[in-house]
C-alpha cells in the first residue's frame, strides 16, 4: 500500500476558507445572477461563479483581503462570462433557449402568464436593447445598474480606466434610450 507521493501546493489554509465562506454567503447569489445576465444560461453562470470562488481560494495568499478578493471574483465572473459567450456550445444553447420562449437552464417550465405579460412591458424592451449594445457597454451598464458598483469598482472589474467606464456608460445609456424610444 506504499504509494508514490503526488503533492499539491498549499492553497491558503484556514484564512482562505473563512474568506471563501463569508464571500459565498454574501455574494454567491448576486454573482450568479450577474453572470446569468451576460450568458443567459444558469448552469454556465453557476459554473462560472463556482470556478471564480475556487480560483479566489487558490490565490488567497496574494489577495489577503476580502475587498480585494471580491474585486477579483467580479473580474473572474465578467471575464469568464465573456469567454463563455464566445463558446459555440453556449451560444447554441442560448439561441435554443431564446427560441424556446426564454427558458433559462433551471427554469424549464413554460413562461407564466405574468412573464408573458412582461414580454410587452418596457422592462423587457430595455433588456432586449441592452443585449444589442456592444459587449463593453453592456458590461458597464450591468455592473453599474445591477450591482450598483462605482466607477472605480467597474474599472477594476473590467480592467479598464475610469475614463473608459464613463465613456462606455454615457454611450451605452444614450444608445439604449434611443433604441427603446425608437421602438416604443
Amino acid at each position, binding site marked *: *500500500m*506504499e*504509494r*508514490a507521493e*503526488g503533492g*499539491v*501546493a*498549499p*492553497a*491558503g*489554509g*484556514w484564512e482562505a*476558507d473563512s474568506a*471563501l*465562506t*463569508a464571500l459565498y454567503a454574501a455574494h*454567491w447569489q448576486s454573482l*450568479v*445572477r450577474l453572470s*446569468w*445576465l451576460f450568458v443567459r444560461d444558469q*448552469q*454556465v453562470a*453557476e*459554473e*462560472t461563479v*463556482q*470556478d471564480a*470562488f*475556487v*480560483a479566489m*481560494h*487558490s*490565490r488567497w495568499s496574494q489577495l489577503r483581503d476580502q475587498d480585494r478578493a471580491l474585486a477579483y471574483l467580479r473580474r*473572474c465572473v465578467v*471575464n*469568464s462570462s465573456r*469567454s463563455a459567450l464566445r*463558446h459555440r456550445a*453556449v451560444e447554441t444553447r442560448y439561441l435554443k433557449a431564446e427560441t424556446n420562449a426564454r427558458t*433559462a*437552464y*433551471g*427554469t*424549464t417550465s413554460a413562461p407564466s402568464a405574468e412573464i408573458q405579460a*412582461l414580454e410587452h412591458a418596457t*422592462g*423587457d424592451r*430595455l*433588456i432586449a436593447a441592452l443585449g444589442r449594445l456592444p459587449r463593453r457597454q453592456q458590461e458597464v*451598464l450591468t455592473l*453599474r445598474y*445591477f450591482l*450598483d*458598483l*462605482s*466607477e472605480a469598482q467597474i474599472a477594476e472589474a473590467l480592467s479598464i480606466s475610469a475614463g473608459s467606464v*464613463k465613456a462606455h456608460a454615457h454611450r451605452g*445609456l444614450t444608445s*439604449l434610450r434611443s433604441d427603446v424610444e425608437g421602438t416604443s
Partner: protein
Amino acid sequence: MTGNSTNDSDFERQLRESLRRDADRISPRDKRLEILAMVHDDTEVAQPSRRWFIPVAAAASVALIGAVAWGVSNTGGGQPVGQPVSPATSSSSSLSSSSPTSSSSPATGVTSQVALPAYFVGAVSDTGDRFGLYREFVKTAVPVGATPAQKAKAAVAVAMNAQPFTNFEPYVQPWSGQSVKDVSVTPSLITLTLSGSSASGFTSAQTQLAVQELVWTAQAAVGQGTIPVKFVVADGSSTLFGTYPTSQTYNRPAKDLQYQDLAPIWITAPERAHMYKAGTSVVVTGESCAFEATTQWQLKKSGAALKSGTTTAASGCPTRGTWTVNLGALAAGDYSFRMFEVSMQDGKGIVAETSKPFTVR
C-alpha cells in the same frame, strides 16, 4: 458616476429595475459543497468540456459555517454525525515550521462548525462483494483557527465512526471501538495515533480500504497534498489489522490508480435528503470511473422508476470523470436517484451503483 441610485433619472431607474427583475428569474442553486470539494480535496477529476474558462484550483481545507462555542470532548469513534467533535484545542504552530503541529495543543474554548470531508468504506453494489471509498462532508466543530492537525483529528474521528451512516449507506465499520488519540503534521509526514489496531472479521480488501480511508481523510483535512501518513497504535501494536505494518508510511494511489481505492460511482449533489422547492430544476451531479464513461440512471418515486437514462462522464476509467443529469422540475414528493454501471460482459449484471434520496416540496 457613483453607482448610487439617488441621482438616477427615470430612465436609469427603469433600467435598474428591469435588470433586477430579469435577474430574479433565476434561483441560483447552492454550490457550496461542490466548491468545498474542489478547494478541499486534491482528487483530480476530469471535468466536462464546457468547463473551459478557469483552471480548477485544487487542495486546501474546509469552510467555516459559523462560529459557535461548544464544550464537548472528542476522542473519535463515538460522536453522532452532525454533532460537535474535537475539543477546543488550538496551536500557534504552522506548517511552515519545522516542528510538527499537534492536535493536542492548548485549548481556546471557541470552536466553529465546518464541513469536513471524511471517507468511508462501502459496498459498490448490492452484491456486497466489492468495496470502495465514499466521501461525505460532515458538519463538525473544530477550534477557531484550528491547525491542520486539529482538523485532521476531527475528520479522522468522523471517518472512524461509520455507524451513523449505516442505516442508509452500505458502509462497514472496520474501526468500530477504536478512536484517534492524536494527530501531528509536518510538511513531510502526517502521524495518526490510534487507540487500537482495529476490529476483526473483515476481509483483506476491506481492511486495506480501512487503512486508506484514514489516509484519504487525513490528507484531505490537512489540505497540503499527498503527505505520507504514518500510524502509531497506542496499545503498542506493530501492525494494523494484523497485516499492515506501522513501520511504513501510506499514501493515496497515483492519479491513474485511484480507482483502486475510490468507489466507482459517487453522487456529489444533491446532498442526502436535500429538499428542493417545487418548480425548480433538479440537477444531479457526480463522479464515475466507468467503462467508456457510461453509466445509467433511474429516478424513483415510491420505489417505482419514473425516469431513466444513460449519461456519459467527462472521462472513462481509469480516469474519474464528472457527470450531470438534469431531471427538470419535479412534482412534490420523495424521490431517489440511482446511478449504476451495467456489466459489459453480460449486459445485465450491475458492476457498481449508488443512490441518493431527496425531496421536492
